[in-house]
């Protein structure tokens, strides 16, 4: 990026918010996805939609890649600037504009932290259900871009089910407004839903209007422990089949329980093979009734112990323990690769078995936890990125896991997005016609291909670029070699 362009960008956002020193560039070369890293050419931190429009014009004119970024907590390499260019850090656009209690909507800028949205709306008795594990730091813009999920997905769905209107800046600098506060709105294509989950490849989101629900009156948490993994999976299937939809139905396997206990010290029985954390919310009568029935089902399906949280604090600490599962797993080995394979709920037990078979076949430690009620599993491989041979086996294992998920009627990602991590598998899920229409939509928005390039669409199919250390750590060649091996 030449000096003139830098000066142009600097004059738009001001000296303090244009970053390009070696340290400053380095810390925007990664997100929460292990193994992916690439350097941007500049980091720009705008404070208004006008500034963003001006930046986009510069970027379009000079064909510079734009990677918009919130807190960088995503797990698909979605914000790694793999082709360099500008990282557009959105955390200064963080105004909470309105909670409309008549229409049950909230409107805010994308840099608002997810947990702050929860706090603000719950203070007036309202409810924004999506609660990704990273909610304490992830931004709403990031949630919308990746269509984040969370632990309440079973009953309440994911981010796309709550986004009603958006403002976004197109690559040419035009400002687009779609959707709004109308509960019913069928005018034309649903561009709002198209932008949700578009992973920064179409436009930069600058304002969000979200649907709110009344805050449930009460909630109750229970846990069930199992001697056998498949008993737990079968319990999940039976609960859903019995037409009960709990707010949360989480699954942890033994290895995950051990590390979570080590971190949270909440007295998990470490000799058990699996546990379910179940939460129901609603009116107290309904909650009591549902919880009692689910407890019966769990016992009937082989749970050795079923326990109710006695206090709200106890319930919260169980949920917090589940939230920390991923990070706690990182204590075991240096590199933690988490995947996001999802199957229809009825196939959960089969999927868990498949994961265990694959782990054995490739001699890997794979811990599995996840949103069992959604069929959304996070098989998580504990490995060491310095062990090239093992990383190669990890790649092969996950490839098999994705194929297994697809075979069971599932998908390659339930809530993390495609990004770089799953770009090579997208065609498995959507097929050639799906790929073609998606590419053409991308071209309509972004004719120069500057919006988050290298994400969602792989240039050649069925090749997983696990590592792209463009960081000068001297690993690029080896990884390129590894990729060739993986390529079939």
């Amino acid at each position, binding site marked *: 990026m030449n000096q003139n362009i830098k000066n142009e960008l600097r004059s738009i956002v001001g000296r303090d918010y244009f970053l390009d020193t070696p340290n400053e560039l*380095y810390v925007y070369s990664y997100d929460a996805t292990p193994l992916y890293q*690439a350097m941007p050419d500049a980091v720009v931190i705008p404070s208004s939609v006008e500034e963003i429009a001006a930046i986009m014009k510069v970027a379009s004119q000079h064909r510079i890649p734009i990677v918009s970024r919130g807190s960088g907590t995503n797990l698909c390499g979605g914000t790694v600037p793999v082709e360099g260019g500008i990282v557009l850090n959105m955390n200064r656009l963080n105004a909470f504009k309105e909670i409309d209690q008549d229409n049950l909507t909230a409107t805010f800028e994308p840099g608002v932290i997810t947990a702050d949205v929860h706090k603000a709306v719950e203070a007036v008795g309202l409810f924004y259900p999506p609660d990704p594990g990273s909610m*304490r730091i992830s931004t709403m813009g990031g949630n919308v871009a990746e269509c984040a999920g969370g632990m309440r997905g079973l009953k309440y769905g994911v981010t796309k089910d709550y986004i009603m209107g958006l403002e976004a800046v197109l690559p040419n600098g035009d400002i687009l407004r779609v959707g709004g506060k109308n509960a019913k709105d069928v005018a034309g294509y649903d561009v709002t839903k198209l932008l949700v989950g578009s992973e920064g490849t179409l436009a930069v989101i600058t304002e969000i209007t979200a649907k709110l629900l009344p805050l449930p009156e009460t909630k109750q948490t229970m846990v069930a422990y199992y001697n056998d993994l498949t008993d737990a999976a079968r319990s999940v299937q039976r609960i859903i089949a019995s037409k009960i939809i709990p707010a949360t139905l989480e699954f942890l396997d033994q290895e995950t329980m051990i590390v979570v206990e080590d971190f949270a010290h909440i007295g998990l029985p470490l000799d058990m093979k699996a546990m379910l954390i179940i939460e129901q919310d609603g009116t107290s009568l309904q909650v009591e009734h549902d919880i009692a029935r689910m407890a019966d089902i769990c016992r009937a399906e082989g749970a050795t112990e079923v326990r109710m949280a006695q206090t709200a604090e106890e319930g919260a600490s169980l949920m917090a323990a589940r939230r920390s599962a991923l990070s706690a797993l990182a204590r075991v080995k240096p590199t933690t690769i988490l995947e996001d394979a999802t199957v229809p709920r009825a196939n959960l037990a089969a999927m868990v078995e498949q994961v265990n078979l694959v782990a054995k076949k490739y001699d890997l430690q794979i811990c599995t936890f996840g949103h069992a009620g959604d069929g959304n599993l996070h098989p998580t491989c504990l490995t060491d990125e310095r062990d090239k041979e093992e990383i190669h086996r990890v790649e092969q294992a996950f490839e098999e896991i994705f194929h297994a998920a697809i075979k069971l009627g599932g998908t390659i990602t339930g809530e993390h997005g495609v990004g770089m991590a799953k770009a090579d598998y997208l065609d498995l899920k959507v097929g050639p016609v799906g790929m073609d229409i998606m590419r053409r939509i991308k071209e309509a928005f972004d004719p120069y291909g500057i919006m988050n390039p290298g994400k969602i669409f792989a240039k050649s199919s069925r090749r997983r670029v696990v590592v792209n250390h*463009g960081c000068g750590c001297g690993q690029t*060649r080896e990884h390129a070699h590894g990729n060739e091996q993986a390529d079939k």
Partner: protein
Amino acid sequence: MAVDVDKRENMRMEMNKQTNNPDCSTASVSLLNKFDTNEIMNCMQCGFCLPSCPTYRQTGKEVASPRGRIALMKGVAQEALQVDQEFENNMYLCLGCRACETACPAGVPYGSLVETAREVVETNKKERSKSPFIRDIVFNKIFKHPKRIDTLGTALWAAQAAGLQTLADKTGLVNVLPRPMAEMQKAVEKVASPAERKKRQKIVKPTDQTAKLRIGMFKGCIMDVMFYETNQATSRVLAKAGCEVIFVEDQACCGALHAHSGEKDGAVELAKRNIEAFEKANVDFIVNNAGGCGAALKEYHHWFHDDLEWKERALAFVAKTRDANELLAELPQIEFKNSFDVRVTYQDSCHLAHGQGVRNQPRQLIRSIPGVEYIEMINADSCCGSAGIYNITNFDMSMRILDDKMKNVKQTKAHLIVTSNPGCLLQMKQGIIRAGMQNEMEAIHIMDLLDRAL
């Protein structure tokens, strides 16, 4: 795709190498080995630490976050980044409050990582040139020598006694001082006179004469000069709780300032002196009243990785070390004679809360004083910006953090803000002045408050 991208990346990295400042030498291999690469790798970049970090909250910039700093260390360890002025600035912008350690589910020991990074910075500088004059004076000529700190205390007392401070205030002489010093000196209370300090009893007998425990008092260096009275108060409170308190001879500065500033050798030297002094004193517990010192004292064993004999002696020292709040909470509750009709809030010392996990004990002690109405402050455990000498070295950032803290302090409408660390106490005093609340509020060390209630 891989090939295209790799090519671009290689080009970009070549460009970066060329644009790096040629004056900054890459750190030597021996230096890079100091990093515990396994611990650096344990950071999984989840970002949970970000909201807990005061400098990230102020700037919104990744480079000022724990995740960012660990990434930079990784960059240096992998020789993708250089140990240059920018890296140094980023390592020193950290307050070392360790709130990120509390937030980190992966248990990354950030505090020791940043200490190592600073050690790498300092060693690298020494390899290039002699250590700067002021640094040498501070770390080698003053803090390693308790007598010299004492002399400084006398000088400070003399200046105050002669009314120099008032004079300086009135004549605008303070404006000649660097801004951080000028602001800070307003918050400094009168220190004890040399005569008064000489009168100190070396052993304070328990109030009811039957000693349950023999306690070695860790005085601290700055603590014992600027907050001499707080140390005296601590001994009285402990005596009331049934302890015989001994002001152990030959103890030195804890070494925390050295360790936090990359002067590892100096820190180790001081630790050895303290271990020896307290071994001789033969006490049940070693008690301190400064969160910052306490955290360092409790981590002595980490300073002796390669020295098994000293590591063992350090472990014995650590096992006996308690913060005064911590020990008092284990002893039978003190019966206070005085009752206050005041509203009180508490500002956590980072190194007491995040470093030592002591959170409830001080709050319980405050609540046990008759008449006190306790009110919890929002974000009480976020750093006040004092952080050792941070408020001098990074004055502007420190004051931004402090001013934000004062908004929360103000909301409590408390009459007293209680702290457990001398640095925090000074900072809160300064914050009260900056917020113009001198008539509404007082900052006080918890041991002084307990002493007042005896």
